[in-house]
């Protein structure tokens, strides 16, 4: 066991754990964050996704010690000043989730996709989201929500630039 400092959702936490422990268990069990969820423990499905350094990272296969001190954002930390992120709002407007268990990974992966490519084509969305699985099969609706979020984000940018 050793003390590790984590920066999660703009808060500093010090945890005393086995350094190789996957980040997922620390977030869920020590920091009480339930956005990231266990789906496979193999990095195959995306349910455990968090944001680190602008990337969508699978916390179930990320040793906690490897992300010490880095800024980590979970689903809970996505809203700003009480305002949902445009991606989250698009998810509500399109009524995306069924059971919702995978949607943490879908939302955060979409967030990174749109940050890197604000106006993705259908093919780019399919490719960019391909490794994030949903067993309720909300894919069609997720893709509609990503396009909706891209539009709202573009409109907001125009407003800022006007």
């Amino acid at each position: 066991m050793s003390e590790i400092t984590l920066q999660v959702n703009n808060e500093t936490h010090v945890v005393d754990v086995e350094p190789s422990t996957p980040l997922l268990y620390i977030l869920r069990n020590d920091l009480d964050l339930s956005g990231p969820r266990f789906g496979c423990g193999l990095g195959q499905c995306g349910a455990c996704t968090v944001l680190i350094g602008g990337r969508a990272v699978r916390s179930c296969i990320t040793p906690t010690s490897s992300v010490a001190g880095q800024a980590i954002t979970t689903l809970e930390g996505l809203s700003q000043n009480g305002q949902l992120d445009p991606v989250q709002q698009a998810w509500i407007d399109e009524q995306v989730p069924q059971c919702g268990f995978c949607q943490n990974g879908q939302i955060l992966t979409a967030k990174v996709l749109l940050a890197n490519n604000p106006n993705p084509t259908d093919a780019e969305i399919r490719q960019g989201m391909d490794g994030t699985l949903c067993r309720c099969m909300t894919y069609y609706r997720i893709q509609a929500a990503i396009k909706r979020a891209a539009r709202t984000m573009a409109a907001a940018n125009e407003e800022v630039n006007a």
Partner: protein
Amino acid sequence: MTSRRDFLKNTGLLVVGISSASLASAQDAGPYPDIDFHQLDSWIVIREDNTATFYVGKTDLGQGTGTAFRQIMSDELDIAYDNTDVVMGVTDITPDQGGSGGSDALQTDGWPMRRVAAEARRVLLSLASDRFNVPVEQLSVSDGVVTVTANPSRSITYGELIGGKRFNVTLTGDRVNDLTGQAPLKAVQDLKMTGTSPQRFDIPPKVDGSLKWAVDVKVPGMVHARNVKPPTAGAQLVSIDESSVSGIPGFIQVVREGNYIAVVCEREEQAIQAARQLKAEWKKPEASPFPPSDDLHSFMRAAEPTSSGQPSFEGDPDAAFAGAAKRFEGDYFVPFVGHTAIGPAHAMADPTDGQLTIYSNDMKSYGLRNGVAQFLNMPADKIRVVWMDGPQAYGRTAADDAGFEAAYLATKLNRPVRVQWMRDEETAWDTKGPAYAMRMRGALDADGNLIAADQDFRAIDYNHVGYNEHDSVLIAQLTGRRRTTPAAGRASVSTDSYAIPNRRFSTHVVSLPLIWETPLRTGNLRDPDGPQVTFGSESFIDEMAYQAGADPVAFRLKMLEAGTGDDDGFRRTRSIACVKAAAEAYGWDTRTSPKPIADGDILTGRGFAYSYRSQTIAAEIAEVEVNRRTGKVWVKRIVCAHDCGLVVNPVGLRHTVECALQYSLSRALHEEVAFNSEKVTSVDWGSHPSLRHSDTPEKIDIILVNGDPNPDRPDLPHYGAGEASCKPLLAAVGNAIFDATGVRIRSVPFRPARVLAALNAATA
């Protein structure tokens, strides 16, 4: 009578505790007797501020049924939808409606909900009548405010009439589904919320991360358990070397009974490590438990059935075959398919004062309560199950292994235990939808009419696992507490309204060599047999259209329209309406299949299939692109015409159907349980592929049909919508592949290797 404590619960005070993060505060002293469903107060509580809470014995698996329940109940009660909420599936707080399953949320269980709400409205109007000294007929009500019609200045809210008080009204009906008061239901035309699409109340907390799921429950002193499964099916545990894990930090205990093993540790990652590291010696069974999955179809064809159903007949099929102009025969196969939920099985059980609270996503929470009571030999009123959201279930949690395991371990250790399965465990060992081998024979007369069909369905379903049975759930098998008599299982037949003058349906159940302690346990999976039997039958009908030289839609419509009778739900008439609506929405041009084979790598085609489930009709068209070089199939477009009677929430219904179509698409293209002769080998998302974003159709069109011959009738029923649309798609895709390539593939899934092999065989 409801007790004081029950009434406090019904005021919502305790419910706040359950839906918030501080779950421990919800734990109060038992016992936890059943809620008296005959009491109106058990279903509806109205507060002084004119808000209402509905208590229903159902669970919402993500199709928005909770929102629909609020809609139909606020409609009958005449209260503003926004001033209501709903509590579902908590065994000591909500009346037992059996939980979820069978697409029955609205079709069956919606009726008592509506009648109870209508009765509450009647009682409230009667109270207002007394208050104003005005006959009920001279009162009007809207959004929970009762007004004297002739003098609108005289009005009173429901909250003022009854807020904080009980109705004290006893309803009649022996069973919960028969429950009724004195009030009649409203005519469909008078419903205001029904037919509108309020957004699902459960979506914002699922999107912002605030929802607490069953996987999130924590209480002080809780420890973590993981199972250690037998390495091969039917293996017997010889010995355990506990010293192989006792040095792991946080190690608490290895629990062993029979062939069941769990390790318990303070922390979750410690339990995972211990489960991986535990040294155990197992002895394989002498006989192979099953044939490899590649041989399953031939095994099933050769197997001696454990039981056969009495064939159902119309006309004289054998005579019709003998005199036919053209005969056809085909064998079809659908393999075992797992549930493979996105999150594996999990539950947390908290024993306090000799009682037990189980936090679970069990879709049938009441059944879990009853099953655990029998399994642990505890009085049922010492146990309660708190249903919470979980990963998609579709039958998986109806035999809730983790719920039983958590309860077992919690009482064994006498402390709160959370158990969760690992991915390989879930994918290999969850309950499986039965494989089907189907032999279809058809006969045409000289005019191309299908004059005889002989349809034989065999399911590998012997010892089908029941709903939360204390003596068939996996831990009962592994601990040696199972029953001795296997369940008979069942084989189903396809459902359509075709007029085929001579027809025989035969059914057989066959068995694998090993039926206990096996990962190939069959259980209920989303429309347990529908996708399988419809693949066989609707592929077969398509082949008969080809043999007849007929357009596949025209061939089916002719058989539907040739029928003369209909049932009381007008299933045949509504089937015709759906078939026509799907063809029209797609822009179906009448021609025979296959279309002329084009040049180039990509071949395109369209395929049709139709079926019904109970009274819900689904007619579907798939448009495919087949890459003849790689064998890869992309379903580019899906059209579904759907009739489930009265639509409560059109947006919610569309999304349910949209997801059901893609679920079946996953089965059509990808899903199959793979196994060798001793264990399941598809154990994760690599070895068990599932639909992905890149597979998603470019366009999905859903047409909500009301094909009732009297579409405006005031009592139009609301039928189920969770499963019917899962049925036809496998066949629609196979029929489209035939249209595109001229090659008929009679087994799913249509993975590239299978498709490529079929294409190559056809050109060889």
